[in-house]
């Protein structure tokens, strides 16, 4: 089994191996098999289309957690220019699971805040697997308030398995740090655009996820408790995670229907990791559109619309 492909993607993986082998053969000798390769490529694309047209909620969770899934630090240099990372919460430390800083989007100064899981093993440990501690949320809050003072729109990229469940997290008030962000984001006097790029897990995701507009990438996921956690509680066994994922409706299509998610950004064929540049380009277009629109609103309207939107959750 190819570790860079998910279980349901294995037939695609097999085709891709064949294509690779043929490419090697063709470069080795004079035989012209480019036509053969073309056919296989076409077949592979068709197969991918077919498989991805019928993904279950649980399959989508897997794509959202794909080992090659682009993370915040993959997108930031592709979407923004002049990203200057800013560090620290000024109270305790600098949380590596949340990155943030000032940058330009299409020339306009913005504040970017994103959760970062880390790619290689060492990197994952450094980033605490994308699980922020209180200092991460407090850094995010500090940057948002900085953005508010200098009238910069805020972009948040959500991708976390959850806020860190550890002793130090609790000692430093992880609950309070998230609650405080929710409170301040509800009235931060600058446009706030949020995007779930991978895994949006519960309060840890929401802690940087309240704003004027919330979008999800097509194969990202957002839940109040992980499907495994839900299955553990209800069935006492995490093998029921696929059923839990289905029941909770963890995908953008369900969440759009509930009026919680405003838009779904389509991913390249086979998922964002198949073409990171194309995905970043779509994200960039989305952000430019939304920020242009929100920045034109009188501040009073922006804030009252945000407040009403938050208070309507669950009622529409």
């Amino acid at each position, binding site marked *: 089994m190819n570790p860079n492909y998910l279980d349901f993607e294995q037939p695609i993986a097999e085709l891709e191996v064949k294509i690779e082998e043929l490419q090697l053969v063709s470069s080795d000798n004079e035989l012209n098999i480019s036509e053969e390769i073309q056919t296989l490529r076409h077949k592979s694309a068709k197969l991918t289309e077919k498989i991805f047209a019928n993904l279950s909620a649980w399959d989508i969770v897997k794509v959202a957690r794909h080992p090659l899934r682009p993370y915040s630090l993959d997108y930031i240099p592709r979407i923004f220019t002049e990203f200057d990372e800013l560090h620290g919460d000024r109270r305790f430390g600098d949380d590596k699971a949340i990155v943030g800083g000032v940058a330009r989007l299409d020339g306009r100064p913005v504040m970017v805040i994103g959760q970062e899981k880390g790619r290689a093993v060492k990197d994952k440990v450094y980033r605490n697997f994308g699980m922020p501690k209180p200092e991460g949320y407090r850094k995010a809050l500090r940057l948002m308030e900085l953005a508010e003072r200098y009238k910069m729109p805020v972009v948040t990229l959500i991708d976390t398995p959850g806020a860190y469940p550890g002793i130090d997290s609790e000692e430093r008030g992880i609950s309070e740090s998230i*609650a405080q962000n929710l409170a301040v984001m509800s009235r931060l006097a600058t446009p706030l655009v949020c995007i779930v790029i991978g895994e949006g897990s519960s309060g840890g995701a929401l802690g940087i996820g309240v704003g004027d507009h919330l979008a999800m990438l097509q194969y990202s996921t957002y839940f109040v408790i992980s499907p495994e956690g839900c299955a553990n509680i209800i069935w006492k066994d995490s093998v029921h995670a696929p059923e839990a994922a289905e029941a909770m409706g963890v995908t953008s299509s369900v969440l759009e229907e509930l009026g919680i998610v405003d838009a779904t950004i389509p991913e390249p064929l086979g998922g964002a990791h198949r073409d990171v540049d194309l995905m970043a380009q779509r994200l960039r277009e989305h952000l430019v559109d939304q920020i242009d629109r929100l920045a034109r609103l009188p501040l009073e309207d922006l804030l009252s619309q945000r407040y009403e939107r938050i208070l309507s959750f*669950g009622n529409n």
Partner: protein
Amino acid sequence: MSWIDKILPSGVSKAEGQKRASVPEGLWKKCLKCDAVLYRPDLERNGDVCPKCDHHMRIGARRRLDLFLDAEGREEILTEVEPVDRLKFKDKKRYRDRLSAAQKSTGEKDALVAMRGNLLGMPLVCVAFEFNFHGGSMGNAVGEKFTRAAKLAMELGVPMVCFSASGGARMQEALISLMQMAKTSAVLERMKLMGVPFISVMTDPVYGGVSASLAMLGDINIAEPDARAGFAGPNIIEQTIRQKLPKGFQRSEFLLEHGAIDMIVPRGEMRETIGRLLAKLGDLPAPDVELVPEVEVETEEADDAGDE
């Protein structure tokens, strides 16, 4: 002579026991902490706090409001808020059926009870979580009722007090539940900017989405003695870090030590303490705790406000 008569201490309400056809079930209650067998009427007089070891037993939302608010002039509000199964959630059972069962067993529509009333003569809005209803979990009905109660407090310009007891966000309402964290936090932020006091009292236990929103956002945060409150449950933390948690982890004393709460207040002193605090925040004279206040009942106004 039945067995209960034999173990009844002489002179202890034997007469009351005999008045009834049979001895009512649960006339005695064992303290979960010190194992003392307690005579229930004594226990109730003590606010369900063990007279032997001071263990604060869990109590329901109505009992809580009963103990806290002045007897006169209280009125339940926002009874029209009901849970809705938007997702048609089904696991081993249907959520709808789980809701009906919880409603039947608790007599509540959902896990939050809201009242208008007075505390030592000062008008206020007070909400309490019913832990026996789905573990006090917050779905839309809880979030919505809390939000409307807060709006009412702002409209009337009276403080709000919340007694939380909750396992967190309600799984069966999935992301709608998560968004109640945003909703309750938003309305509390507005209260804060308006200068309408909000006092959050954490009672055993407060976890997850309720802890990471409304419960931690009090102008003043209070916990009952030995209550547990935190973001992640102890089991989850132990599984993650693979080590035993220190004694007293996430208990009130821990919360106080780490700066999460302002004070630990025993149940018997709750009225007096919060009364004193609210009087100062509202620049009112010190409330007379000896006096059972004469309270005017404002039924008409209350009816209008209840529809908000």
